[in-house]
């Protein structure tokens, strides 16, 4: 009979994946995690996550790249900071989650709708210096395509109510006057960020 609880082979750790994650901006904090589970208990959205933050950190340590990058954990993280405020080891979980979102997008694991929202939001900021709700929404549907538009139609009462109560301006805010300088600052920041990551 197959013995389910006995390991016949030693666990293989894929250290290269773990090392890559540790090298992200806030990645090294994951090493401080002692697997206590406080974040899992504290988390606002744990019930709909496939792995709790604690489990996800364990999977990273074990080098389970595919499981980690396909997980919904960081996409379902709302940046509520509850775990960060409670972690006894001072792991800034929110910031780690942001790093994981960025890394997942870069690796092409961007199938969650939240990824489209993040990209749309950034495109607005980059182009205007400010966020225009209408612009984010339009860009989001451009990325997500027709299926998502159908879902949106089911939500149209919410949008109509917002319009009725002057909550959705139809015109975007004025661009930041110093947009040119802001772009230079962002460009330089990206360059320095890459340099720092290598250092």
């Amino acid at each position, binding site marked *: 009979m197959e013995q389910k609880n006995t390991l016949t082979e030693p666990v293989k750790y894929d250290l290269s994946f773990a090392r890559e994650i540790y090298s992200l*901006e*806030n990645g090294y904090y994951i090493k401080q995690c002692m697997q206590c589970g406080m974040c899992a208990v504290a988390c*606002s*959205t744990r*019930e*709909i996550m496939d792995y709790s933050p604690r489990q996800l950190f364990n999977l990273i340590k074990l080098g389970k790249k595919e499981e980690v990058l396909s997980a919904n954990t960081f996409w*379902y993280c*709302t*940046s*509520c*900071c*509850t775990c960060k*405020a409670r972690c006894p080891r001072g792991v800034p979980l*929110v910031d780690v989650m*942001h*790093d994981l*979102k*960025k890394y997942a997008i870069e690796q092409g694991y961007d199938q*969650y709708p*939240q990824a*489209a*929202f*993040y*990209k749309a*939001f*950034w495109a607005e*900021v980059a182009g205007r*210096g*400010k*966020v*225009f*709700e209408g612009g*984010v*929404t339009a860009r*989001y549907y451009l990325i997500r395509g027709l299926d998502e538009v159908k879902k949106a139609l089911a*939500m149209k*009462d*919410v949008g109509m*109510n*917002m319009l009725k*109560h*002057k*909550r*959705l*301006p139809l015109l975007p*805010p004025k661009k*930041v*006057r*110093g947009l040119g*300088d*802001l772009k*230079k*600052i*962002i*460009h330089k*920041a*990206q360059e*320095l*960020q890459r340099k*720092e990551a290598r250092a």
Partner: protein
Amino acid sequence: MKYCFYPGCSMEATAQANLKSIKAVAEALGMHLEEIPDWNCCGATVVSSVVGDFTQQVMAARNLAIAESMGLDVVVGCSSCYLSLAITNKRFKEDEHFRAVANEALAAGGLKYEGSLRVRQFLEVVINDAGLEKVAQMVKRPLDGLKVAGYVGCQTVRAIPYEFDDPEYPVFMDRLIEALGAAATEFPMKARCCGSSNALAATDIVVDSSRKIFASAAEGGAQVIATPCPMCQMNLDAYQQRVNQLHGTNYYIPVLFFTQLMAIAFDLSTDAWALDYCIVSPYNVLAPFTGGK
């Protein structure tokens, strides 16, 4: 009392009621809010997931650099903007290496930030600088008997724990509600997350999170919910009907910015009350206090 004011993108769009009431309340309390000229988006908790923490914080710091040249501390209303600017500010103050590299980036736009300012939440400024006594003195229409659930939300008190209130059991909001003559209800979910910026991409998160917050507010007998945060206000107001449809509930709890309640209690202009912006209509429940206008 003079401050720099950072409104943030939502106050120009979904949260105009917040902007109108903050400005009027501040003026009534003798605070002068000078808007940061040509401010840009702080990046909220979204941008770092695309371009990284460092770039997001440099972007946020452009606003701080402009404010520093005016020599005034920065007051923020939106919780997400507060989080982003306050954390950036803390890093400038505490991390020398970060400050040096970040300033190298800011220099590309002719700016520099030394980290000399404080970044403050408007709620905290009202309580610590104006004071609850002054607030109580200003009340001309006491909100007697109004049961208010003080919903601080998650980021306001957890951006930097213990910066001004208890991150687990915040009390600032409740004290303010009481200073207006209203009753702060029992509300265990007052610092739980509303689902944040997921309304568009993952509505289920917002619906599910809001449902729990309504249940907790209703159990405490709240007639209205008051919040400092544009995102909380938006989610709880715009999706309340949706929660009712999906969960067979029957909540009808208007959601206001705490500054709107202040504007009413101080008997400021109806423009400052900004009640038209509420989707769940507050007119009936507030009728005992809004008469004559």
